[in-house]
Every structure is written in structure tokens, then in C-alpha cells.
């Protein structure tokens, strides 16, 4: 798909194999500044590997990744990751730290003064819709939804323009999941973020993203805006993924019509 607006992130010819098994087979992806891209695919399609190659949590075998004009290989991994927000299904809050300490961790790593950190934490709690007195809570004692809001705040703390999200809402109950998804979408708008989100849930992708790239066996088989994806003819593997929300919608409509 053509990238409109200015190019922010460009992946080309990405290959990666584990023990002889090819997981990414020459993947290319160009992402415009400010866009919200969903990487969709079934388990084992290579979508998480592709995501993690961007902040070098996984090193690729070949191919190039250029972020805002700089090859990521030229940036030390720790420094690169401080510039990129990262949210994942496991959340991974540091259990020995308070909510505030968790949120401020990247700021602490980059040497931001303590008083600035306190102010920033307050601001972030407001952004993710948590009460201010959460700052001193023990990270261990939060519910799943609260914990992922903190995870989100932690990823936003350094004002990274790029957010990488790996099934960020996958472990939450459906109501919380919907709530948090919409809350994030509006943060994406207001903060002017560029977001790449991995999900195996096509409905979530269709409802949140501006653009959907479908991975099948380590290749991108479809890459389009949600509406275009639904309207045009697609390969069988992509169609199978699209059938799921379509069937759900039809059945719901049928149930409501019958009432």
C-alpha cells in the first residue's frame, strides 16, 4: 500500500529464521508518521517477531529497518528502546516498585531529575485515566486493567513518538479490553503517536487501526485500510481471518432481528 504523508518507519527485506525454520520471509513495511497499523495473523505467522525486530528485542538475519531516517542498527539497543514505547500482553510491571516508580522507569534510566519525574507521573496517570493516589500503590496489587493502564503510562513516559504494542489488551476481560482499546485510540490521536499493534483479533484491528497488514507464514499477504480490506477480493488465508468478525456480526444481527 502506498504511504501517504511522510515516511516514519521503513522495514525492507526482513528475514529471520529459528533453527532452520523461516519465520519472516523478506517482509517489507512502510509506516507513515501518525498512522495506526495493525499486524494481524494467526499464531506463528511471524507478527510478534516482526514487531520485536523494530526495537531490536529480536535481531533479524537480514534486511533493514530505518526509523525516522536512521538505521536502527546504528543505535545501541538500550538507547533505541528508550526512544520507543513498548506495551505487551504480559504487562511486566516491576513488582518491587510502586506504580509511580514503574511509570517513571525510563525517565530514571535517562537521568531525568526526580521532581520532573513526579510531575510527569501525575500527568501520565491522568492520561491513562487512573486516580492520582495510585502513584504510591504497590504494582503487585492492581487488577489486570489497572496494571495495563500503568503499563501504557510507562510506555508513554518518555514521550516516544512510536508505540509498539504486542497483543496489549489480549489478557483483559472483553469490557475492559474494549474500554482500554478506545482510550488508547484517542491517546494516539491527541498525542500524535505512530502505533504498530500486533493482534490476532481481526475485529479489534478493524475497529482501532487505520491500516491492517495481514501476515501469513512470514509474508504480508494483504495490506490495506480496513474498509478496502473488506471490500476487495482477498487470498483465502486472509479471507478466513476476515470471516470471523463478519460471521459474528451476522449472527448478532440475526439475533436482534428475531427478537
Amino acid at each position, binding site marked *: 500500500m502506498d504511504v501517504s504523508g511522510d515516511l516514519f518507519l521503513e522495514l525492507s527485506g526482513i528475514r529471520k529464521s529459528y533453527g532452520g525454520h523461516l519465520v519472516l520471509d523478506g517482509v517489507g513495511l512502510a509506516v507513515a508518521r501518525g498512522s495506526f497499523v495493525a499486524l494481524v495473523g494467526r499464531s506463528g505467522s511471524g507478527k510478534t517477531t516482526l514487531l520485536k525486530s523494530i526495537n531490536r*528485542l529480536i535481531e533479524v538475519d537480514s534486511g533493514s529497518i530505518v526509523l525516522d531516517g536512521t538505521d536502527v542498527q546504528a543505535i545501541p539497543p538500550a538507547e533505541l528502546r528508550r526512544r520507543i514505547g*513498548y506495551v*505487551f500482553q504480559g504487562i511486566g510491571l516491576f513488582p518491587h516498585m510502586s506504580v509511580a516508580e514503574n511509570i517513571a522507569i525510563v525517565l530514571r*534510566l535517562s537521568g531525568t531529575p526526580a521532581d520532573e519525574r513526579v510531575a510527569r507521573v501525575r500527568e501520565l496517570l491522568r492520561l491513562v485515566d487512573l486516580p492520582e493516589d495510585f502513584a504510591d500503590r504497590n504494582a503487585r496489587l492492581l487488577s489486570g486493567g489497572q496494571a495495563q493502564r500503568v503499563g501504557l503510562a510507562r510506555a508513554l513516559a518518555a514521550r516516544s513518538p512510536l508505540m509498539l504494542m504486542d497483543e496489549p489488551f489480549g489478557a483483559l476481560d472483553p469490557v475492559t479490553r474494549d474500554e482500554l482499546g478506545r482510550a488508547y485510540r484517542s491517546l494516539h490521536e491527541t498525542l500524535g503517536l505512530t502505533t504498530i499493534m500486533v493482534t490476532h483479533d481481526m475485529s479489534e484491528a478493524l475497529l482501532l487501526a487505520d491500516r491492517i497488514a495481514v501476515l501469513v507464514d512470514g509474508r504480508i499477504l494483504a495490506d490495506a485500510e480496513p474498509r478496502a480490506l473488506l471490500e476487495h477480493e482477498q487470498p483465502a488465508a486472509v479471507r478466513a481471518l476476515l470471516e470471523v468478525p463478519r460471521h459474528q456480526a451476522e449472527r448478532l444481527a440475526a439475533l436482534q432481528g428475531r427478537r
Partner: protein
Amino acid sequence: MNPALADAMAALPALLRAHVVISGAALAIGVLVGFPLALWAAASRRVRVPVLAFAGLVQTVPALALLALFYPMLLVVRQAVGVPLPALGFLPALIALSLYALLPIVRNGVVAQQSLDPAVIEAADGAGMTRRQRLLLVELPLGAPVMLAGIRTAAVWTIGAATLATTVGQPSLGNLIFSGLQTEDWIRVLVGCVASAALALIVDALLALIEAGVARRSRWRLWVGLGLLVAGIGTALVPAQSGNGPGRTIVIGAKNFSEQYILADVIDTRLRAAGFATEQRQDLGSAVAYRALAAGDIDVYVDYTGTLWANVLGRKDTPPAAAMKAELTRQLEARDGVRLLGGLGFENAYALAMRRQRAAALGVASIADLAKVAPRLKLATDIEFLSRPEWRSVADAYGLRFAEQRAYNPTFMYRAIVDGSADVLSAFSSDGRIRSLDLVTLSDPKGALPNYDAVLLVSRRAAQDPALVGALRPLLGAIGVDRMREANLMVDRDTDKRTPGEAAAWLMQPAGR
């Protein structure tokens, strides 16, 4: 206060201090080495398997043997490297105990690393922590309770095992236990055990406080625990005010039985009277004592001609007493620079002894008689006897074979013959219990057991000090076997027991007469 208790309590502070220093140092090294080793082992299977196997193997070696092994090993290293490492005392004890502390520290360290939540590690990496930041900010704080539990285990083990450091000449609470066992001074044993157990419990409680402080993020717990621990070690490190004059401290060695303690006290008293600063290293094994003297780790001790002849010179013949002593004097001087000052005036030979009635009933008066009935009898010996060349020599000469032979701590060896669990024992001819238990020593018509005149040995360096040699000379020929037996009995008997120090004072009253 009971004199035995008073005596033990007087010795306690210095020994406790030494015990804290040696076990604290060993634990510190165990942590400093074990900790990076655990991190390395957790990261790599190729390191983990051999490291844990090695640490486990060390644990299977009895602590006593582990300590004893480092003495000859350090001697070899010292010769190879040419650096004057002290092979006796602090260093071998430190190395052995540190190795002992390693297993729980490494094992818990590895477990702490491996049980970290992978999501937390991913979050740390994703947030942009370097390897070092991840370790300091995440892995260590989260693993601390498990790692501290390992350090607690190591602390309790080390404090317990440090009582055995006594056997390689490092003073510890073991001095009270070993000398108490030897002289059947149960109060002394009890004081040693209680002090060691109390020390272990206190240290464990302080470490538990630190552990709770880390786990609950409670600063006061952490600092109180740490503060008390550091204060304790600090107090132990403050050098004891001995009030001794300037100059080198003379180290007096003693093996692990009553006579040796008494004689060490006699030597100690004489040297102090002559103005020397002294310290004692007690409970040295036979082989360790001579080598320590040759290496200059101790300056003076009493040994026995037959022992030196067979064990040090490795000779199997048994020449007459005077010839043996002359040859020893020449050879020890030539070989190790050790000066044999002369005999104290009595012999402490290995002898085979039986209860008078039993010997009469069996018609046994000599070892030759014994050989005929031995296959029906049980032999009780001290720990060393059966592995000594003298035993092989006497067994070969007479064709001795017993129905059963068993090694005991000397105290229990005498018990065994009294209660009938043994018929014959390897006695020491100067032992007061021969008379008090009404035992007879069997004659040795073939002369298979060599002479065991008690002789005073001084190290090369001490021999060059005329004042020191002059202070010791009056002891030569001054102690007859009857007086030595009497003094030994004062310490070994069950009632009206005296301490080795009291026996030494008694022994010295007529000395120089």
C-alpha cells in the same frame, strides 16, 4: 564459680572473637565468589552444571577432612611459588570454609535468577535497560530474598564448621570443644557448643531481619540487621589488648590430648615468665604439628621420639633410645633446621594394655602371649593408632590378629575397656588412667614398639633466640613419668577434675628442684 566453668569462660572471649572473624571472613569470600558465579551459572548451562556439581562435591567431603587437606596443599603451593604463605591457621581454614559456604550461595543464586518472571525481564529490556541496569534495578532486588536465604544457610553451616578450624591451628570455639572432649571436661564442651550455637542463631536471626527488610522493603529492618552484623564483626576485629611487650609472639603447639595441653601450658608459663608474648595452637594432628614447626608456623612443641622416627623420618627399624635420639637430633636439624633440645624426662610410648584381672585370667603378660589369644579378643585404639607404622610393626612382629578392632576418641577408648566392649587397648604409657583403672601394660620382648621419649622441639627461628632456648632448658629432664601420669590423671579423672592449666602449675612446683 566452678573452676572448670571459670576457666572455660576466661578462654571464651578470645575464642569467640577468633570464631567470628574466621567464619565472617569465609562467608564474605563465599558471597563475593559465589554471587558472580551464580549469575554466570544462571546464564549458561555449560557453566551451571559443572559449578553446581563441584559445589555439591565439596559438601560431600567431611569438613574435618577438607580443612586437613588444605594444610599439605598450601605447603606444596608455598614451595612451588616461593611465597611464604602461612600454611597453618587462618589461611587453610579460610579457604576450606569459604568453599563450604559456596554451595548454598551459588545454588540459591541460580534459583533466584531462574525463577524471575520472564514478563518482567521483557519489560526491563523493552524499557531500555542495559544488562547492568537490569541486574541492579530488577534482578537483584527481586532475587534478594532467595539469595539471602542461601546466605543464611551458608552462615549457619560456616559457623558450625568453623569449630573444626581448631584442627588446623586456627583458634575457634572448637578449642573448647576439642580440649573439653579430650579431658572429659563436659562443662568446657558445653560452653563451646552453646557459644557456637548461640552465635549461629544470632547471625541467622540478623540475616532473617535483613531478608525481611529486603522482601518487605522495610528500611529499618534492613539497617538494624546490617548495623548489628557489622557492629558484631567490627567488635571481633578490634585487636585484643593482651598487654604483652613488644616483639614477636611465640607460638606454642599442642596435639590433641591432655598431656599435650598440660605441657603447652608449662612451656607457656616459662616463656611468659621470661618476658615473651605467647599464643597457643592446640589440637593439631600428629602430622600437622611437625610440619607446622618445620614451616615456622609454630615455634615450639613437645613430640615423641618414636613418632618422629617413624612418621617424619619414615624409618621402620627400632634402634635403642639414645641412638634414636642422636640420629633424630642430627636429621631434623639437617633437614628442616628444627632443633631437638632434649628429653623432658619421661616416655609416652604406645603400649598395649589390658585390665589386670582379664590379663591374669588369660595368662597374658607380654605381646607374644597376647598373639596366641588375640583372635578371640577385641582391640580398642585411638583414632590414629591403626594407621600408624608402629601398629604395622608390632602386628607384623608378633602376627597379631584381633577378632575386632575399633578406633575411639581416647576418652571413650578407656570407657570401652572398663565396660567390657574391648579387651585390649592402645594405651599411652604416661597416661594416669593406667594406674587409676588398674590396667597392666604388656611387655614387648621383640622390641617392636620404638621408644617414645617426650622431647622438646623448637623451630629454626626460635632456636636462634638464646633467651628463648635458655627459658626452656630447665624443663629438660625435669618431668619424671610418675609426675606426668599424676598430672595427666588430674585432668582426665572423673571426680575432682583439674584444668590443664592447674595441672601445669602443679607440675612446675618442683621443677628446677
